[in-house]
Structures are given as structure tokens and as C-alpha cells.
């Protein structure tokens, strides 16, 4: 038990170090900006006085290291500074949108994970049958589809030709949950289609990998049904790579949501990020990138820890 605790602590500190380095990169990315941030924001017509005042307001006249320290400490305390474009506090902009992004990502995950596991187990059970072949071809092609293509096909068929679902996912906190779920169903299905393939293939592959082991043969010779062999004997031993790929895909969901949010005009963090990039609103981009990167690193960390927990042999590498 102690070794597991030690391992978790080790991974956790590694994650914190990674996050620290990433924050350093995100911060210094602005430092290497060709030209001056103040000049860039205020335009060519700005007088030297207004530029100096603006630089003072942002603290640009202080050395980079002290600015980094104050930026990071403010971030940790939840103060993300102000938007360059409209002067609003970034934390106000972010809080609602981040929970919206997490909402649609979680919604997709709740559909995608059970679906992928079921399909993967079925494909392993009926491998080399027509079911497996069809699953294989569809998965291979759906990896190749750009996310916006999937999204627009869904809009065309489920929203325009037959008006089952709304094509715009504009939700607000005041709506009841059922209304929110109804309005975000198309983005959720799009995300599900994008991630389910990878998880399903991994489930199938790792179960088939285990099927060659002697204990599976033993179970089969005892006269167990193929379904029982797979669910009770193969699946638990194939769990490590499956958990890993699920967590990786959840991390992908949080990031991949960017394009889908834009298609469905969903008020999430990705939409804000894209808008801010085109407005070159650097402080907002920094804050949003840090949140995305932090979530991504956290989920990868969880993937790492869970896959070691489910396969204790990984505790002692080599």
C-alpha cells in the first residue's frame, strides 16, 4: 500500500513540475513577441504617453521575472487579470464558460464510455464476423472525418431535414437541466462519435491480446460461455490499457471540444479562446490555455495512476 502512495505522490509532483514548466512557456511566449505588446494593442497612432501609461498599468515596465511571479500567484488565487480587448475581469469571463465546457465534455463521456466498452467487448466476442468487419471499417473511416464534418452532417440530418434537435446549443444557467441536455445533445453526439472509435478499438485489441493466455483457455475448457469468459476472465486483465485510453480520450474531449463549440455556437471556453485568438487578446488566451493545459495534464496524470493501480506489475518498472 505504501509503495502505491509513494508512486502517486511521485507522479503528482511530476505533474506539478510539468504544470509549472507549461505556465513558464505560456508566460514567456508573450515575452518573445516581436515588437511591443502595448504598441500592438493600442495601434500605430498611440502617443508615447498613452503607451507608457498602458505599460505601467499592465506592469510591463517591471522586469519579466517579478511579473511572472505575480502573474502566477494571482492565477493560483483565482485572479486572472483583465482582458485587453474589453477590460473585463478574465475570471468572470472564464468561470461560466469553463463549467459549460466541462458539462458538454462530461455529457459526451457518459454516452461514449459505456458505448465504447460494449462495442469493444462485442467486437472481441464476435471477432472476424460481419459485425467486427463493419465495426472495423466504420471506425477506420470515422477517424478520418474532420470534427466539423461530423457536426454538420448531424445538423443536416437531425436538425435541418428532420427537426429533432436544435442546431444551436445556446444554454444558460436559468434553464432546467432537461432543457440543457436537450439543447446540447448534438454537440455531445459529435464528440461521442469522435472519441468512441479509439476507445472501442483499444478495448477490442487489449481483450484479444489476453485471450491467448492459458487461464482463458482453462476457463473455456471448464465449459464457460464465451461471453462469461470475456467479461469475467479477460476483461479484468485487459483493464489497464483500457482505463488508460479512456482517460486519454477524456483529456482529448476537453480539448477537442473547441471546434465543436464553434460549430454549435456553444458558450464554452473553446469558443472564448478562438474569439480571443482572432482578436489577439493575449491575456485571455494565456489564461484559457493554462486552464486547458492544466485539465489535460491532470487527466493524463489520472490515466497514469489508474493504469498502475489496475496492474501492480507496473509499480516496479523493468
Amino acid at each position, binding site marked *: 500500500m505504501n509503495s502505491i502512495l509513494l508512486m502517486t505522490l511521485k507522479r503528482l509532483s511530476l505533474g506539478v513540475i*510539468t504544470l509549472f*514548466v*507549461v505556465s513558464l*512557456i*505560456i508566460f514567456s*511566449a*508573450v515575452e*518573445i*513577441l*516581436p515588437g511591443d505588446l502595448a504598441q500592438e494593442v493600442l495601434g500605430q497612432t498611440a502617443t508615447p504617453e498613452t503607451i507608457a501609461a498602458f505599460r505601467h498599468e499592465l506592469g510591463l515596465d517591471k522586469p519579466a521575472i517579478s511579473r511572472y511571479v505575480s502573474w502566477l500567484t494571482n492565477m493560483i488565487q483565482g485572479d486572472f487579470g483583465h482582458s485587453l480587448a474589453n477590460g473585463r475581469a478574465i475570471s468572470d469571463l472564464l468561470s461560466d464558460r469553463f463549467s459549460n465546457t466541462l458539462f458538454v465534455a462530461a455529457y459526451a463521456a457518459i454516452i461514449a464510455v459505456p458505448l465504447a466498452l460494449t462495442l469493444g467487448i462485442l467486437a472481441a466476442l464476435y471477432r*472476424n464476423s460481419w459485425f467486427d468487419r463493419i465495426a472495423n471499417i466504420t471506425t*477506420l*473511416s470515422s*477517424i*478520418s*472525418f*474532420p*470534427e*466539423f*464534418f461530423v457536426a*454538420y*452532417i448531424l*445538423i*443536416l440530418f437531425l436538425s*435541418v*431535414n428532420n427537426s429533432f434537435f436544435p*442546431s444551436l446549443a445556446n444554454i444558460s444557467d436559468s434553464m432546467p437541466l432537461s432543457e440543457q441536455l436537450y439543447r446540447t445533445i448534438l454537440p455531445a453526439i459529435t464528440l461521442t462519435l469522435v472519441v468512441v472509435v479509439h476507445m472501442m478499438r483499444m478495448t477490442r485489441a487489449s481483450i484479444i491480446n489476453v485471450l491467448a493466455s492459458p487461464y482463458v483457455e482453462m476457463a473455456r475448457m471448464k465449459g464457460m460461455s464465451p461471453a462469461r469468459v470475456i467479461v469475467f476472465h479477460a476483461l479484468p486483465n485487459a483493464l489497464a490499457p483500457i482505463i488508460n485510453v479512456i482517460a486519454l480520450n477524456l*483529456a482529448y474531449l476537453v*480539448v*477537442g471540444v*473547441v*471546434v465543436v463549440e*464553434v*460549430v454549435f455556437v456553444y458558450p464554452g471556453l473553446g469558443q472564448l*479562446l*478562438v474569439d*480571443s*485568438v*482572432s482578436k*489577439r487578446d*493575449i491575456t485571455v*488566451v*494565456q489564461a*484559457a*490555455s493554462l486552464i*486547458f*493545459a492544466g485539465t*489535460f*495534464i491532470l487527466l*493524463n496524470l489520472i490515466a497514469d495512476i489508474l493504469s498502475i493501480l489496475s496492474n501492480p506489475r507496473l509499480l516496479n518498472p523493468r
Partner: protein
Amino acid sequence: MFTFLSSLRTAPLSAQFGILIICIYLIAMVFAPWIAPYGETEILGSAFEPWSSTYLLGTDSLGRDMFSRIIYGARNTVGIALATTILAFLVGGLLGIVAAVMGGIVDQLLSRTVDVLMAIPSLIFALLILTIVGTSTSSLILVIATLDSTRVFRLARSVAQTVVVMDYVEAARYRGEGLWWIIRYEVLPNISSPLIAEFGLRFCFVFLFISALSFLGLGTQPPLADWGSMVRDNATLITFGDITPLIPASAIALLTIAINFVVDWKLHNASGLKDE
């Protein structure tokens, strides 16, 4: 070339289909000015004209011919993705092999740098960098090539490591061969087949990635025709049940599927598996 053609005859149907599609795209790329009925940025009629004999697929939001722009889009979208992938392979592949051959501090330094770069989701990283350097074709190619070279580095390093421990590499070292000789004549020939397969898959990733960025309005800049931005510019048509904006999107999907089929076949060949 001849051996390639004869091996193609025995290839599975999906791979032959893939090769055919890739050839069609290449023809569209090379002969775009001759195939397309109108110019790339020529404004011809009013916006969103329907399909007709003059405008095969109608016109876009600015009154430009859709069909011509799709043909030209092959040049820009595929061309940029190809340039990016080649650059990513030159940088990532070379550094990966160097890290494997030299080992020690060089390997540690390069690998840790790559680890950190890979910890940031690439879409977010690309958006951050593009905010700072601005969106232009050259910065797009440089930024995405840098991000993707980290993935190539990982693969090149790990496959090169299995070759570096071989006796013939050790013999070459004792002969006093230089770093470049070992990379070029000892390691590279032995890792070329996984690298070629990776090139196909990496190209698909880069291609989809650039299309996504263009779709977000942050990739290829107007007035250049690009499949990703064409979808976005004409997306309003979808709400009227018109499928025209889906054509450039399916052009992206079709090429990616074709490449996947060919890579699948190549990998199957390389792994020495026989069909049951």
C-alpha cells in the same frame, strides 16, 4: 516503380482504391489551372447561386465559383499539409535518431524538452503561438511542424534505439565512422519502413489539424481557397438544407481515408502477416 506497380495488382481492394484517390488528388493539385473553369479568387456572380451548368456547384458567399475553389483548394490545403509534414519529419526524425545514436546528455536534453512540449495539447499550443506570431502561411507551417516533430521524434528515437544496439552499428563505431555516416548508412535504412508508415499517418493528422485551424478562421488566410475555411464561410447554406458546404469537408475526409487504407496495407505487408 515497376515492383510497386506489380505489388499493387495483388493489393487488397481498399488499398487500390486509396491509391486511385490519391492519384486523383495529385492530378487536381498539379493541373488545377487547367481543370478549374474559373480563377481561384475571381468574383463572378452574386452570392450563393445554386448549382447550374455555368457554376457547377454554385457560388460561395462572395460569388466565387465553388467548383474552381475546391480544385484550387487541393493545392493549398494538401500542399501546406505536405510541406508541414516533410519539415516535421526532417527535424523530428533527424533529432530522434541523433538522440538514439549519441545517447547520454544529448538524449536526456532532447527527450525532456519533447516531454514538456507534448504535455500541452497541440491545438491549444498552436492557438497560443498563432496569437503571438500572427496567422500567415509560413508561421502556420513552422508552428505545426514544430509541434508535430515532437511526435516524430518519439517514434524515430524508439525505433532507432533498437537498431543502435546492433553489432553492425558497434562495428561502424569502432571503424571510426562519424555521426552522419552512422545515421545515414547504418540506422536510417533499417528504420525506414516504420517511418514511411508514420509519415502517412502523420500527414493525416497534420491535414486534419490544419483544416480544423482553417475552419476556426486561424489557418490559411483568405483569399486563398482552403477546404476548412470554405466550410466555415458557407456554413449558413446547411441550415437551408443545401449540402454544398459539405463537399470540401468530404474532400478532406476522402483523402484521409484513402491514405489510411494505403498505410494499413503497407503496415500489413511490413509486419509480414499473412491473410487467413
